[in-house]
């Protein structure tokens, strides 16, 4: 897929990040192309979340550059980057706990970007934010006629919170969504219901970067996978290529049998 496009939508050039002595990223290069679903995997602490943070401007880089559609976005403020269309979810969920669930979406719908784009599949009909918010929630798996969208977010269970994270990104009508472990903490059936959703989002032409430990589901949706280890890019390729790679096995599965470990993934 990436061959027929010349310019990557997201590009990381020699990105490094050092947190006072700890090198979280070391000279990472990465191209993400329009329409990709890129998976990033790696052991704990390998720098995956750091990649997300650096792309979305939540941390400043030690060195390197990041481009979005050819424009240099290094050092830009998070809200500027989000405004350009790169959105993210948070690994440690950050919904608005004190608001009712649907109002979580009214906020991104109020943002300048949503006003410009009309919001998620909005097409300019940004009249009633509440209706749109509930539409999005339905899309993402909240039962429409239930009272759940109206419950205070803090009383919602993890599964809904994870979805809210994603919904918040969708509301902005983004070009790139970076999901940080949205499958973790979800039950089997819920993950199963999320997978088609991801595919649908991809069909809408939105580029997705997914960070996951649930390899099985990840491989269902991802067309490319990058493996990080100790802040360094190990390999990049299709899921099968990656799984076949010896280095990856070594770093990610250790000495265990892949099959056995995969039962956990």
């Amino acid at each position, binding site marked *: 897929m990436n061959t027929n496009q010349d310019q990557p939508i997201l590009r990381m050039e020699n990105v490094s990040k050092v947190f006072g002595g700890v090198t979280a990223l070391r000279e990472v290069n990465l191209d993400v192309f329009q329409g990709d679903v890129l998976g990033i995997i*790696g052991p*704990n602490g390998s720098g995956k979340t750091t990649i997300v943070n650096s792309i979305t401007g939540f941390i400043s880089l030690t060195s390197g550059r990041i481009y979005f559609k050819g424009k240099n976005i290094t050092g830009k403020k998070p809200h500027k980057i989000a405004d350009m269309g790169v959105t993210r979810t948070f*690994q*440690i969920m950050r919904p608005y706990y004190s608001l009712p669930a649907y109002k979580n979406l009214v906020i991104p719908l109020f943002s300048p970007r949503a006003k410009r784009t009309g919001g998620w599949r909005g097409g300019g009909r940004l009249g009633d934010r509440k209706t749109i918010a509930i539409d999005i929630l339905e899309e993402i798996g909240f039962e429409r006629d239930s009272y759940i969208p109206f419950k205070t977010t803090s*009383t919602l269970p993890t599964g*809904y919170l994870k979805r809210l994270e994603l919904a918040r990104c969708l509301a902005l009508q983004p070009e790139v969504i970076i999901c940080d472990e949205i499958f973790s903490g979800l*039950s089997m*059936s819920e993950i199963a219901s999320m997978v088609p959703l991801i595919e649908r989002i991809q069909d809408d032409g939105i580029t997705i970067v997914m960070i996951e430990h649930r390899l099985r589901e990840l491989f269902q949706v991802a067309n490319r996978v990058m493996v990080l280890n100790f802040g360094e890019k190990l390999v990049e390729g299709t899921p099968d290529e990656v799984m076949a790679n010896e280095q990856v096995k070594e770093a990610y599965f250790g000495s265990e049998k892949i099959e056995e*470990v995969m039962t956990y*993934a």
Partner: protein
Amino acid sequence: MLEATDLMVFYENMLALNNISISCRDNQIVGVFGANSAGKSTLMYSLSGIMLDIRKKEKMAGGERITLTGQLTFQGKDIMDMKPSDRARAGIVLCPERRRLFKESSVMENLRIGGYLATKAQARESLDYVMTLFPALQKMTKRLAGFLSGGEQQMVAIGRALMAQPKILLLDEPLMGLSPLMQATLIRAVKKIQEQSDISIIVSEQYARPVFPIVDYAYILENGAAVMEGTREELMDNPDVKSAYFGMS
């Protein structure tokens, strides 16, 4: 060892736990499985007594009223009204979901705070044990816990709970955010803990499959009620359970 009968928890008017009876015998691993909002965390909080603290704080701030009824016995003693800190002293230690580390302290300090109840010798021993369990932690003892990655924090949280010399360890979704390798390691470690130091463990998970091989007995929660319980074998044979919690059909 730990036995709860007719446990009921109301958040204001919402019934979060409905008449749950659970028991955990000595040196047993008990699994509590359930989808989101089944009430796993509520159960864990009730068992460890944190619910009392939550209730107190809510009352003070004029928030929702939490009602808690039922019987809870630990080693034959009624502990329903026991303060959470005393329960920990008695040996019920919870490793909560969302980690709740001491963010501003270093990893080592986190572990040492965990060892508050332990004697010096015990603390040293458990520290070594945690370090062999999670070798990754060895390199980061000086770093602030709040800056660790999600998975690393999870390891510290479990290590910290182990430091508290539990007799019964409550693990609330311990696998969340861990890499497959880490999950495998952890599960094996849990088994090893149970075998080596005769600790009982109650572990809650959404996704039963990784944990299932090591549990002796399991409960399945749905909407706050225990809809099913049984030994591993019994549940294994049940097709509903299989599809819902193991993702296989």
